[in-house]
Structures are given as structure tokens and as C-alpha cells.
């Protein structure tokens, strides 16, 4: 099973994309969403998720908010910022370009 962060740089793209569709997810939900949607193909290593989230928060692409859940526990929910939307666009087109290039190599080599 591939790990999301083994595909270079794809972790940011995945997190941003998920958050653009479903704002207000906490770390665990983001992780499970990536796994579910990819049909368990992509798996996020829990250890690298949080530093990545905090790095993106620091970069201003996402922002976080503490909420208190019904269980009384606090959770930190993330959502996309305007800068994050822009970044997502950039990452998406870069991804398209890369896969296109890889496909061409596979086809024509």
C-alpha cells in the first residue's frame, strides 16, 4: 500500500483538496478521508500528518480553530484560507503536469 507522503509533495495537495471539499475537519478525519477516498490505497503516516498541518498553518494556507465536541473533548478543526485555495490550484496543476509527463514517458519509452 502506498503511503501518501512517499509520493513527493503529494501530502500537501491531498490535505488541501480534502479541506477544500469538506471544511472543518480535524487531523484524524483528514487522515481517514484520504484513506477512504483512495480506497485504502493511500495511507497517511500519522507521525508526519501533524507537522505537515502545522507547517501549512504556519504558511497561511490553512487555519485552525479549537472546538469542544459533545464528548467534552476539544478538537482542532482545519479549514482552507484564500491563500490555501490559490496554493491548491498551483499544486493541482503541478500534479497534472507531472502525471502527464510520467504518462508520456510510460507510453513512448
Amino acid at each position, binding site marked *: 500500500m502506498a503511503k501518501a507522503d512517499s509520493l513527493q509533495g503529494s501530502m500537501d495537495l491531498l490535505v488541501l483538496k480534502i479541506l477544500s471539499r469538506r471544511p472543518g475537519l*480535524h487531523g*484524524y478525519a483528514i487522515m481517514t478521508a484520504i484513506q477512504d477516498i483512495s480506497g485504502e490505497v493511500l495511507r497517511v503516516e500519522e507521525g508526519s500528518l*501533524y507537522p505537515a498541518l*502545522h507547517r501549512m498553518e*504556519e504558511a497561511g494556507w490553512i487555519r485552525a480553530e479549537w472546538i469542544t465536541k459533545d464528548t467534552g473533548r476539544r478538537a482542532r478543526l482545519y479549514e482552507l484560507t484564500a491563500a490555501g485555495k490559490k496554493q491548491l490550484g498551483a499544486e493541482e496543476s503541478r500534479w497534472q503536469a507531472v502525471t502527464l509527463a510520467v504518462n508520456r514517458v510510460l507510453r513512448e519509452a
Partner: protein
Amino acid sequence: MSLWKRMANVVRGERLNREIDEELESHIEEAIAHGRDPVEARRAFGSALRHREGSRDVRLIAWLESLRADSVFGWRQLNKTKITSAAAILSLALGIGASTAGFRLIDALLLRPLPVANAERLHVIAFEGTGPNGKMTYDSCSYPMFRQMRADVKEQAELIAVSYADRLDLTYGSDQEMEREYVQFISGWMFSAFGVKPAVGRLFSADDDGEPGAHAYAVLSHDYWTRRFGKDPAVVGRTVRIGETPYQIIGVAEKRFTGTETGTSIGIFLPMAMKNPQTLESWNNFWMRTFIQLKPGVAVEPVQERLRATFHAIQEERVKTFLTLTPQQKELFFKEKLLVDTAAAGRSNLQRDYKRPLGILAVLVALVLLIVCANVANLMTAQAAARAREMALRVAIGAGRWRLVQLVLVESSLRAFLAAILGGLFAWWAAPCVAGMINPPDDPARLSLPADWRVFGFVAMLSAGVTLLFGLAPALKASAVRPASALKGGENLVVRGRLMHVLVAVQVAFCFLVLFVAGLFVATFDRLTHETTGFSAERVLNLEAVTHQAQPPAFWEQVEEHLREVPEVESVAMTTWPLMSGESWVGEISIGGAAPSDVLTDLLAVSPGWMEEMRIPFLDGRDFRREETYPNAAIVNQAFANQFFRGEDPVGKRFEMVASSGGRSSVEIAGFVKDARSRDNLRLPIRPTAYVPFSAVDAAGTPQLRGRGTFVVRTHSANPLALASLLRQEVPRARPEFYVNNIRTQAEINLARTFRERLLAVLGLFFAGVALLLGGVGVYGVLHYSVLQRKREIGIRIAVGAQVGVIARLVTVDAFLMVVIGAVAGLAVGMVSLRFIESLFYQVRATDWTMMAFPWAVVLLTALAAAIAPVMRAVRIDPVEMLRAE
């Protein structure tokens, strides 16, 4: 996340940790809630601590965080060693404070640009010539000279005439309400050239400075307006009478501008054209400075060349009017060279007089600061020895070398920072205090001493420099620690001890220098104040009086008579100005019709009884009689007899006074008195002096009117000032035309002659005391440390029967060797460098053995005193206890 937030996170590190932990914890909870096995979930998640570190570093600034941690640790470290830390911080504070105070003074007097437009383009004309005491420079010009120069460089520069600031009598009402203020004549275009704006009213323009005597207008300075009128805008339009001329006040200059004479705050500006016409027209009356404001893009050199040519042409013309010049004098006259000096910081005599003393002050301060640094470095090295294990442990558990350097440097900066705050406070107090000692209290130097970015920047740079100076060596030392040997306890102590000893030698050398210089200044002051004046200043009060219009001698005598009636008055006499007040009148004399002599004679008009009142004893002859008038009789001093009569008793002989017009009048010598000092320069020998009668007649025998003079009063009471206000009132009571514009005791005048020397002596002593204290602490610290280090060795030596003397020698010999080396080095540096400031000394030389012996003795005694405690400690070591403890 903003930089600010990241910085904020540095100080709320704990909370940040909690937040990250909570988020990670909630992740695991969530996983468990989704049915995962708790143990498996935690294992899959990995080390929480590692995640926290990873997240933490992006959420705050890592280096700032470590800095914070170091600061906290450093603070604890300071707290742990309170006494040594306090000693280090206090001595650093003293060093930084003294340096800052010195910088503030030097900056205010010599460096700070005038608050005028394009101060960097401002220059002043000066001249270099040869005077009686060798090379001399002066910066005065005559007005016609100024006008010609201005016309000649019109294209390249604007020239601005500014008179010397003069404290004049002026009044806003009657004669009885006279007051004194600094008045300065300036070119009408000065304000616009300097870009100075009015605070109220208007300032002069070039039109106010055209026709002589036509525009009797005055502009006040903001400072004077505030002091005298409490910023009353209604002052515009009022009239101030200065001399005989009423001036209408037209405005007040803006606050920042207090004139171009640094150290003096001008009260009233008047247009040049209002100066009396004879002065304005005279080519030989040098009474003002010429400022040059270069036009943009113009270099100094061509302007200087042009002005030199003009000056030479002027000299060619002037020399034709001097009929009595010898060829030698003529040659000197033409050798005078025009200079264009930069004047961005203004131009004043105070700058000239205090440039070198302040330079020396700066050197003394720097030496003290270096002693402080050496001291603190020593303290820290000693502490570092105690912390070698801690450092080794840090290295052993993986701290980088740089991290250790940072740790020690942060501790050093913490010290320097605290010291800078204390030092800043010290400087805040000390700079105005020293500035107040520059001039007599009735006429203080007014230096602007703002605490602005210049001062702040200086303190910051100084503190940083000092931190590196005293902190870098211990820091590098700490980082070079070898964990294996340090943890075993075998750190190389010899090397560390050697560094400390070298630092002691350096300290002693500097300390010696400071003491040496201080000793020379104190001796100079002492010799100058004990220089005999030849008269008695005790209980003498000088009432300097002026009259509305010049008055005949009979009226002056009337006032004198009246003052004799005042109770507590012992005697009264008259003279033109007080002795040693700085004013003088010189004349050329001739013996037996010969050419006038080269040596000038001081002339002083005195009334009968003045000699006795001043306690100047007669060697022969008699005092003046009432009916004797100038220029018919004279009393001469010993210097006069030596110069003109080969030391013989000159009573009954005659000499001629030669007027500048060439006219001669024959004078009979009626009396012969001992030398007494009348001029203000104590360093020069007393010159030939001829006293002449106070009352004067002209060639036709008509009494000459006199507009100013001094009543010299000797009182019965020990404090003559107690009578001052009474006497001030009695003068106009005797004759309403008279009023007193200044009262000074003779003692005060004498003291004022040595103000600069006193300042140097006081500051020298202060720094000598500080240097000595620090030097003593330094020696003590090193000895103390070496006793601690060698405890075991000493214990064994005592156990095997070493004598007290042997132990004492063992402990002190190295340090004393360093003291001697330091003192010799200090002496060598002193003998070489003090040549350059010899002109500030009087009758003492850097090579006098007594002047060298004094600091030697003091340094050695201090070292001995500092050694007592450590030696006592060494000999009291109990070998049994010592060996048991090991």
C-alpha cells in the same frame, strides 16, 4: 502564522506544548473511538515527544526559543552567584555609565551637528600664525575683511558673520533693572541660510542688515524667551535697551537653534549693521567669526585657495598702516595662513579649551572600562572553572559547541544588559553634573545633552562590544571543554590560571596609567592654586559698576566715599576691572626716548589706597596722591624694574608711554611694589606692570569721563558676599547715574582661573579611585581563586611543616610578578604617551620620579591589601580537615 505569533509563542512555550499535546491526544482518542486498539493506535502514532518537537519548531522561532531558554538559565545562574554577579554588573555599569557620560559630553560639544540646514557644508575661517608662545590659531576676522571675502567667493559659498557671544547689560525698563544676557551680532541672512524658522514674529532678513544703525531690531532665542518671558507671545514689539540703543523685538527663533557658539546659549540676536560704525569699518578690529556655507557640490579646497588670495591682498594693504613693525614682525605677519575648518558642530572657545581635556577624559574612561572588562572576564573565567563539569556534561549529552558559546554569551549579554541600564542611569546623572563643572556656576556651559538615538546607539554598541570583550574568552573556553578529562576532574587548570594572571597584569598596567595621569593633574592643580598671586583675595568683593553716561572722576570718588560709610566695610578703592578677571590693557613703553620696547607692559588704573587694600607691599616710594592723574605718575612692579632698569630701584626715574598713534607722554615713577598677578593666565610669568592713577586728564588737563570701573571693597566680615546686596543698593544711592552690573568675590575670580584644571583633577581622582578599587578586586579575585585551586597542595605543605612565609610566598608570588610587570608596562606606556598632553600640565613632568613613585606605591599597597585576605585563608587551611575532605 505571523512572525509576531511565532515570537509570542516563544514566551508561551509551555502553553504551546500543551496545545500540541492536546491535539495529538485527541487524534488518538478519535482513533480509539473508531474502533482501533488503543495500544496499536499509540504505537502507530509513534513518539509523541518527537511529534511535539517537530510541530513546535514550525510554530515558533527555534533560535529565539533557545535564546529564551538560555536567558532563563542565565538569570538563574546570576541569581545563584548573587555577589559575584552584582560585583560584575556594578563594575560594568560604572564602566558603561562613565563611558556614556563621556560620550554625551564629547558628542554635545564636539560632534553633534548644529540643528541647521546642511550642517555638513558649514565651515569657519581660522588663521594660523606664530605668537609669543609658538604656533597659535585664532578664528577672528574684521568686518571689512569679511565683506571682501564674501564678495570674492559669492559664486561658491555664502559667508555669514557672527560676533563672539558677549554677556551684555540690558534692560526692559529703567537703569536700575539692568540684567545680563548673551548677545550676538549676526548677518541678517543667517537665519534663512540655516533654515531656521520663527517660533513667533519674524526673523531677520538680509534687508535688516544693510544700512548701519538703521534697523534696531532684536530676535530672541527660544531658550531665553522661555527663561525670561515664560513664552509670552506679547514680547514681540517690546523694547530692550542694550547700551544706549533701544531695540525692538521682532520675533523668537525656533527652539532647536541656540546659536553657533556650542556651549553658550545665545539670548538675543542683533543684526551686524547695528554694531557701532567704527568697529564695522575697522580693518584691524578682529571681533567676529566668519562662517562659510558651501553651495551644493562645491569642494572646500578651491574656496580656501580663493580666500587665501583675498587674505593675502588684505594683508598687503593692512601692513602699510603699521608703521612701527620691525622686518621680523613683518615676516611673521605675512606668514599667517588662512584655514577653512569644518564647523558642523558649531564653533566656540569652549570647544577649543576642552577638546583635549575631554579627549583625555575619554582615554581615562576607556582605560577604566578595559579594567572592568578584564575584571569581569576574570570573574567569569573563575566561574567557568567551577562550571567545567556542567559544560562537560552538556557536551556529553549532545550539546553543540556553538550552543555552549551561545549559552555563555547570553549570560554575558544579560550582565551587560543589566549593566547598560544602570550605566545609562549613571550617565543620565553624571553628564550634566560634569557639564556643570566646566564653567563657574554663575555662567554655566549650556550643552544640549538629549538622550536620543545617538546616545542610545552608543550604549547599545558599547554594551555589545563589552560583552564580546569580556564574554568571548570564557565562552570559547567553555565550548572547548573536553568532556572526558573534565568529568574526571582533570581539567587543565594551569592554562586557565595563566589567562587570569595575564589579565591581572593588563589591569595593573591600565590602573597605573590612570593613577599616573590623575597624579599629574592633581599636582598641576595644586601647583596652580598655590602659585602666589602677590595680593590678598581674602574678604575682597569686586563691585563692577557702569554709568548711564560716562561720569567725571569726582563722581566716582563720591560713590567710593559713600561706600566707606557702610558698616562692616573695612576699605574701598577703585580700579578699572578686578585682578585676574581676564581683562587687560597693554601698552608699549620707552626708556630715555629710545624706540618702544618689544616687551609689552600691563597697565592698570588704580585709585590711592588700592595697593594697601590688595596688600601689595611697597619696596620703595609711595602710593598715588588724590591730585595725581593719568598719565603723570606711575607705580611699577619688580618685573618692570628687572626688564627696564636692570633690577635697580626705579623710584624717581621716568619712562615714556607710547600711544598707538606714536604720541608719547612722560611718566614719573612714584612707587615700586612687589609683583602681583593681574592677568588671568596663571601659567605665564607676571609681566612688567605699571599702575597708573584711576583719574585721567587729557593733554589739555580736562578730567576724562569714565563709564565703567570697579569698586574694590574689603569687608570686616569673613564672608564678603553677605554685604553684596546692601552694597549693590548703596551705589545708586550715592549717585543715581551709577549701577552695579556684577559682583564677584576676588576668591571666586581666582578660583575660576583653575576651573579646567580642577575638573581634570577631580575626574582624574575619581577614575583613579575606581581603577584602584577594580584593580584591587582583580588581584584579590585571582589570589582567592588560586588559593581555592591549590587548597590540597597547601594543606599537604602545611602538614609537612611549611612556614607561614613560605605559604604566603607560594600563593602570591605569581600574582605579584604580574603586578610588577603590569606596573612597568603602564609606566612605559605612560612615559611615551603623556608627552602629547604635557601642555596641560604645569610645573610637573611625566618623567619626575616623584610623580612615578606615587602610583607605584599606591598600586603596590593596593595589591598588598588585596592579598591579605587570600593569604590569611591559605595559612589557616587545616591540613587534617583538608585531607579528610578529599
